[in-house]
């Protein structure tokens, strides 16, 4: 093989490897959540069957988001198990009355307006169609924050190529548009942007 072709190939392969493996590691910083949380265990032990039992819609249709510690205190006012996470929840958050500073995977830019009520109640979407199968997870995953944009990796999705993604992997504007397009629902710019 000619020498220049060999060097070209080296450069080509090295960049491909760096681009697909090293770049994501450099771009995203991993941060642990303040507490360990097991969706699966909660569903099995406490009989919570629906996401909305904790992540509720208010009476006026607005989404309450993450449950307040007051909700957790319904069962965990005092320690009922042996886990360190529960001890931390009770001692650091429930008893002092502080909210748990969860890092929100689905946090969108401030100029986005999204109604869970419309999507869940009117369109009948399941939570995992956008959020993935968190409800079946046995531990909370690491929160990966993009160094440049400041948003979670869950917005872009875990596949860097955004090809062959699992349902609910990615929450970019194009994901919203694709879903709307597939369902023939027009929202317009002001339908989502403040």
């Amino acid at each position, binding site marked *: 093989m000619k020498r220049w072709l060999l060097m070209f190939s080296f*450069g080509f392969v090295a960049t491909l490897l*760096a681009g*697909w493996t090293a770049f994501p590691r450099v771009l995203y910083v991993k941060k642990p959540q303040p507490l360990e949380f097991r969706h699966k265990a909660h569903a099995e032990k406490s009989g919570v069957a629906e996401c909305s039992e904790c992540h509720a819609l208010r009476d006026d249709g607005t989404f309450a988001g993450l449950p307040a510690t007051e909700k957790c205190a319904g069962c965990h006012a005092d320690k009922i198990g042996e886990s360190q996470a529960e001890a931390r929840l009770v001692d650091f958050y429930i008893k002092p009355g502080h909210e748990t500073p969860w890092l929100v995977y689905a946090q969108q830019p401030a*100029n986005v*307006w999204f109604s869970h009520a419309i999507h869940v109640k009117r369109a009948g979407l399941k939570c995992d169609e956008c959020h993935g199968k968190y409800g079946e997870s046995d531990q909370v995953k690491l929160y990966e924050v993009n160094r440049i944009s400041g948003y979670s990796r869950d917005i872009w999705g875990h596949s860097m190529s955004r090809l062959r993604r699992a349902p609910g992997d990615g929450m970019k504007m194009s994901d919203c548009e694709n879903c709307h397009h597939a369902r023939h629902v027009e929202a317009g710019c002001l339908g989502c942007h*403040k």
Partner: protein
Amino acid sequence: MKVSRRDLLAWSAGAAAALVATPVPWKLLDDTSIWSQNWKWIPQPSRGPMEVKHSACTLCPSGCGLRVRTAGGYLVGVAGLASHPVTGGALCPLAFAAHQLNWHPERLRTVRHRGVESSWDDARAAFVKACGEGPVIVIDGYPGRAASVVMEAFGNKRGEYRAFQGTEWKVLAPYTRWSGVPASDLGYDLENARTIVSFGAPLLDGWGIPGRFTRLWAKRSAGQNEPELRLIQIEDSLSRTATRAWRWIAVRPGTESALASGIARVLLEEKLVSTQAPLPDATVSEVALRTGLDISTIRELARMIVAQQPAMAISNNNAPSIAALNVVLGAVGERGGIVRRSRAAKSYQDAEAPISSARAVVLDASVPWSFIPKTDAEVFRFAAWNGGPTKADWLLPAPGFLEELSDVPTAPTASVETYAVAPAITQAPHTTRSCAAFLASADPSLTSAEKVIHKRCADLYRARVGALHSHQQVPVARLETDSQLEEQLWNGSVWVGEPASGESILCALKKWPADDADSPVDSHQSWSVPVMPALATKLYQESGLRESQGRIA
């Protein structure tokens, strides 16, 4: 192995070729674009609970129904309120972007005295001193509001209260001269008219209350050869209204009022109307010569107007001959014409009348920036936005869009009385004060706008007339307490009175009025605020929804 320069170039070429096949350039492009949206100096909507509130627009006297979205207590979106009984969801382009107005770069944030930053204490001290030295004239842009009551009380006590006459009032002024009925009592009964002759009025370009005529035209006229509502546009150029009109009559510029006299002459000569009125001086042939129309066209036009009654003429200026044509048509005080919608309104001294003597002149924020009082007195001008160079001695920052409690009385041109309340939905980010509150601070015996609104609600309840309109219609007589009525008004309901009864208005037209030199009224002046945010300006300029007289045909 020794690495040569040639090797390095080959390696770089390979790397560059591969780079486009990695996510690096595409992801960096995406991330940097998002990063650029989050620079700290770019205003961001607040995070916080999203709320939707119903209110009324206070940018002009039309008082369109608003659906306002807030995030964390700040305005983030404005849309029309479909359940509003008059506007039905229509808004002007300015109102659509009004939530941005409070963040406009030209927002007045501090008190300024002759261009130099000052304080409210200094302004108040200067005003109190002026009050002690001579009469004070208070000028209001939208009379009839609760705040106007405070301003009027102060003006009557310390000098004079004047009202800035908007476009719509000026157009109705001839009827006031002939009948004594204040222009603020009169309205156009468009809904019952079957022929409307517009003398240059931009009826489909944002005239009057947004959406009112457009919707009427769309329902009863658009696309029909023999429409239920005939719109005849008399104008020198093919405006947007003219292109949509049932008939467009092109006349020479500035001869609209002459044509009105000609039409009236034909109507009276050929006894096409039963009204008794003085004959215009100009003959039909003279009118034909001035307007550039054929005599037969003028005669045909007159017959066309009376063919489908009720017919009404609408003018774009205060030419008395066009108003007199309405008298000839019997359209004054009749259904489908100029109707008297109320008896409560007052006549006020015109703000533009000469000021003989005054120590100080106070301009409310509702007075258009372009209005400059011709006086040597000390001028205190309230404004939410800086409109450019001004002769005012004191520039006082007023609350911006939906930052203060206000009420919205009946809009000019409306044929039925309405009343709405626009509560303060968001907090003023700066130290602002309304003109009424400033005057009340100088004279503690004055009442507050809030108390006036409270009293007005109690009066409406006691009168037991009309109904509250929101998503449903509730007659006032069915409400149990006055506080119930007030609460509903605060939540965005609109009180609508009984339709005008068609009370006759006697117009003493002894002599046919002389054709004044036509002075078209700029139809956008009465509603515009001093400055507009970038988006609204673009919409305004490019959509042409509100045409000005300066447009190119």
